């Protein structure tokens, strides 16, 4: 179980529905480990600013996460979490292992458009 405040994806079907119903989706697929927890924390922090992005997580050891683990974009990945960015259901970016807030923001801004402060 992932102890985060993100939307949890439990099944491959739910994953498919979320990426089809939302234009911009970020899914952090990991465990409750040292490299993953900071990324969940960053996603939680950014969720309120990036209201045009749906932030989710998925347990790496859940067999249903094969939808992420078998993506061609994660071939060669050898560090969790696998973080996948979807636009209109298509993978536009994937990263492996821990990322900084600046790295995550740079991807969100590039792929999904930046947040404009009032």
């Amino acid at each position: 179980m992932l102890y985060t405040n993100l939307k949890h994806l439990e099944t491959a079907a739910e994953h498919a529905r979320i990426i089809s119903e939302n234009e911009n989706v970020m899914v952090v697929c990991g465990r409750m480990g040292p490299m993953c927890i900071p990324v969940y924390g960053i996603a939680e922090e950014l969720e309120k600013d990036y209201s045009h992005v749906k932030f989710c997580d998925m347990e790496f050891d859940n067999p249903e996460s094969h939808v992420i683990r078998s993506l061609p974009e994660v071939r060669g990945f050898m560090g969790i979490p696998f973080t996948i960015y979807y636009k209109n259901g298509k993978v536009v970016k994937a990263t492996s292992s821990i990322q900084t807030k600046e790295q995550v923001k740079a991807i969100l801004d590039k792929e999904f458009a930046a947040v404009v402060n009032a």
Partner: protein
Amino acid sequence: MLNAMNGINHYDAIVIGAGPAGLTAGIYLSRTKLKTLIVNEGTIGGQLVLTHEIANYPGVENISGYQLAMIMKGQAIRFGCDVKSNVSILNLELDGEIKRLTLSDGNTYTSYSIILTPGGRSRTLGVPGEDTFKGRGISYCATCDGDFFTGKEIVVVGGGNSALEEAVSLTQYASKVTIVHQFDQFQAFEHAVEEAGRNPKIQFIMESTLTAFYGNESIESVDIKDLKTGKTMNFKTDGVFIFIGYIPNTEFLKGKIALNKWGEIPVQPNMSTTIEGVYAAGDSTAKRFRQVTTAVGDGTVAALAASNYIHEYKVKQKQVTNA
């Protein structure tokens, strides 16, 4: 200029860092009814959340670092602390009776006292290719990524307790583990060295260091330089785990407060620093043992000393006003 004394952004104390030292300081400060702000550049919990399981925290049989950190955070908030995480420090003024802190949220916060608990982070090699192959063969966490290396040959870099203990743990997965260490002997405890030495899957390359990483989709080889001869060899490997210690997160304090040659903050027994009203606690201070329990102890002492300082400051100000 911000009206520090009346502004909503004025606090009695500001704690910079939200690991066990910072959260404990926040708990103690807010328990004494001092208006307290905790700010953190990363995720709440610091290096505590990087610990998979804690079995030696008194009073708690077994708990993950994340769960313990969340309990501490909850306590700090329930006692009245304001907590801001994942913010950057743009400016910090420690001199003078009123301390000032400007954050990336655009706000400036003031306080009578500041407790520095920025903690530390894993040291990286700083070698070409390290960023490229992070998560593609380079890892800093055996429990996270060990199973990706089942049946593979890997390198572990380092010679302290973490390096040797994690190397032994990685033999559950890897077919061969080569420990590369820059010195001719290990800094780890004797029992850790002996356990690694007894393991038939582990071999050692001493007085050597990694100088480059190579590969395509994932890492395929590294350059290992013999520090005695200066010769470099290319070494085939499927992965590299790096455990070469920690460095204090004190870059933002350079020129603002005295640091020792390792970038640590020297403190007195009451955790005071060279600047009046400024205290420090936890892994960023100059000390030998870095444990959750020692960080919690440091945070307690720093908070009590800061509380005393703030109380005396307020009494003095009242006397000046009444005079």
